[in-house]
């Protein structure tokens, strides 16, 4: 009976999983507060905070002006002084306006204060292209992967959105939590009982033989669609959903690539200095030369024009092409490709 309880799930929309995580953590810990644009009576731009204002009131669920630098600064400063704020930045593109308090203060605080202070703040933002143009579509998580002291998580399912957000709100340092616009319409099974997804651990979404595809956030769905098509051609893809970008679960990636001996990295953001470049290099530091390809956005801004947007960001067909190319490059097995 107990094990049945533990494994029981409930189907939740992605936004419902987020609201549940925040609600549970706000009930559990009075230090958790929510700060952001339209988070109070409106319940968040994606309805991901519906009900929280009514339940916890105006002192713990606080609407802000459109002022990302002060929103993040408030969260970081309040965190340093003993609170556990969740700061909602509606679009990841606008994170740029608030990077100073996050990077120059929050991420360095434990170090620069010699352990006297830390900033347990979660900055939650939404990345990805969905028809909104060049300054509302970007995936800039790789920019932040080289900030010491900053953790980054990017769920791909409602269950992970729930479990990672709860873990993030219990971390003792700053965490960047990255949603994706295209994940919000989706639903998925979420454990009925409280569940925490550890930060720094990936998950194997699909077992495969021929190649390892690593992706995060919405691109996990793209990888799954590509793997379905490739299976029809007799190509067996293993898919790792990173879940955490900092720290990276390098051990799990290497374990997989050691078996498949080929690696494809997939991200919606830019390829140069991207998530894939970092993973590809570090895997080869561990394993020696392996066949690698990187797939990411074209090196141009993401237009709101549907034709141009689709052309810019990776889709299943581009992933399939890259996989076929890498697996057919048998004469020079380490000639790596990017597309």
């Amino acid at each position, binding site marked *: 009976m107990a094990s049945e309880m533990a494994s029981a799930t409930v189907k939740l929309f992605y936004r419902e999983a987020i609201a549940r995580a925040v609600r549970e953590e706000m009930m559990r810990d009075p230090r958790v507060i929510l700060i952001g644009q339209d988070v109070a009576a409106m319940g968040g731009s994606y309805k991901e905070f519906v009900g929280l204002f009514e339940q916890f009131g105006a002192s713990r669920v606080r609407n802000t002006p459109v*002022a990302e630098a002060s929103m993040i*600064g408030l969260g970081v*400063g*309040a965190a340093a002084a003993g*609170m556990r704020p969740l700061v909602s930045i509606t679009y990841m593109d606008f994170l740029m306006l608030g990077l100073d*308090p996050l990077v120059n203060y929050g991420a360095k605080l434990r170090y*620069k204060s010699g352990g006297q202070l830390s900033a347990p703040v979660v900055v939650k933002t939404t990345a990805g292209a969905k028809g909104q143009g060049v300054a509302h579509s970007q995936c800039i998580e790789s920019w932040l992967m080289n900030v010491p002291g900053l953790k980054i998580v990017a769920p791909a399912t409602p269950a992970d959105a729930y479990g990672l957000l709860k873990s993030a709100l219990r971390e003792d340092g700053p965490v960047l939590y990255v949603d994706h616009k295209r994940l919000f319409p989706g639903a998925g099974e979420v454990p009925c009982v409280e569940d925490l997804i550890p930060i720094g651990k990936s998950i194997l979404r699909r077992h495969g033989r021929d190649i390892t595809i690593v992706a995060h956030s919405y691109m996990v769905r793209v990888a799954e669609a590509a793997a379905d098509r490739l299976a029809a051609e007799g190509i067996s893809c293993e898919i790792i959903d990173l879940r955490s970008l900092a720290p990276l679960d390098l051990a799990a990636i290497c374990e997989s690539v050691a078996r498949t001996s080929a690696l494809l990295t997939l991200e919606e953001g830019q390829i140069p200095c991207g998530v894939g470049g970092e993973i590809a290099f570090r895997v080869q530091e561990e394993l020696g030369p392996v066949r690698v390809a990187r797939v990411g956005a074209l090196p141009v801004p993401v237009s709101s024009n549907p034709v141009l947007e689709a052309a810019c960001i990776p889709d299943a067909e581009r992933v399939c092409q890259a996989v076929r190319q890498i697996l057919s490059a048998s004469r020079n097995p380490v000639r790596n490709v990017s597309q």
Partner: protein
Amino acid sequence: MDTLAILRSMLLIRAFEDALIKRPDHGFQLLSSGQEAVAVGVCAALHDGDQLLSSGRSIGPALARGLDPGIVMAELLGKAAGPCGGKAGRGHLAQPSAGFFGAHAVVAGNLTIAAGVALAMQLQGPSHIVACLFGDGACGAGALHETLNIAALWKLPLLLVCDNNQYSVSTRRSEALAPARLSDLAMPFGIPSATVDGMDVTAVYDAALAFAQRARSGEGPAFLECVSYRFASHSTATRETRSAAELKAARELCPIRRFAAQLEEQGGLTAGIRETLERDVDGQITEAMRFADSAAYPLASEALVDGV
């Protein structure tokens, strides 16, 4: 106001910096000499449990807040005995347990942080406030506008103190900032504000005390501009661009000399008391130097501690 304690605090900052700067290994420092009255006047209005944030020009504020000169010297010289283990230096010096939440060396970077600390205090219970010291340079940054707006809306217990030393490195305040008075910046937000002579510790204290009491009673933030002057160049690595005549004239405004003269006139300070204070401060500086000199540098392995 404990006038002799205030005089002593200003003497301590001046003597501390004089001693620091004589050392060949003083490193990269931003000195507070000339601006002692601002930090000391503001800190005299703060209580235990309040927090002070400062810019990277932190030596005066830290000592005025009552941090031990020995551990401050150790931190500035990179010794492990500093409150931040020598990792912060003057740019990020902090000892929150002593009411000094810390310096932050990004101009205007401490404003939104201070608002966050004030928010935490407001949520955690009544009566404590946050004072945030920043230079005139920060008044050109958007962070001040955002902070004033949210602090006014949320009635944060926040005392914003602009220590206007009239220069951003070499750029005169008149070249960089349009408002006639920097305290005018607070007016559109309905935040009470004042501009006072920052070389007059009594004026700073009186204004800071009134604003601090107001914030403490839940009435919200205030903005205090203190017009001051720094005696040294922007930093120990920055060449002086001001004329010798200008510097000489400014030194005539020395806040320590001025306050001592006031006290003498009022009969509260005699040559004997002054001598005792100075001897006492000298002893404290000697002890601070001895402590810092005898302290060890951190081990190189400390580079990897507290990184995450």
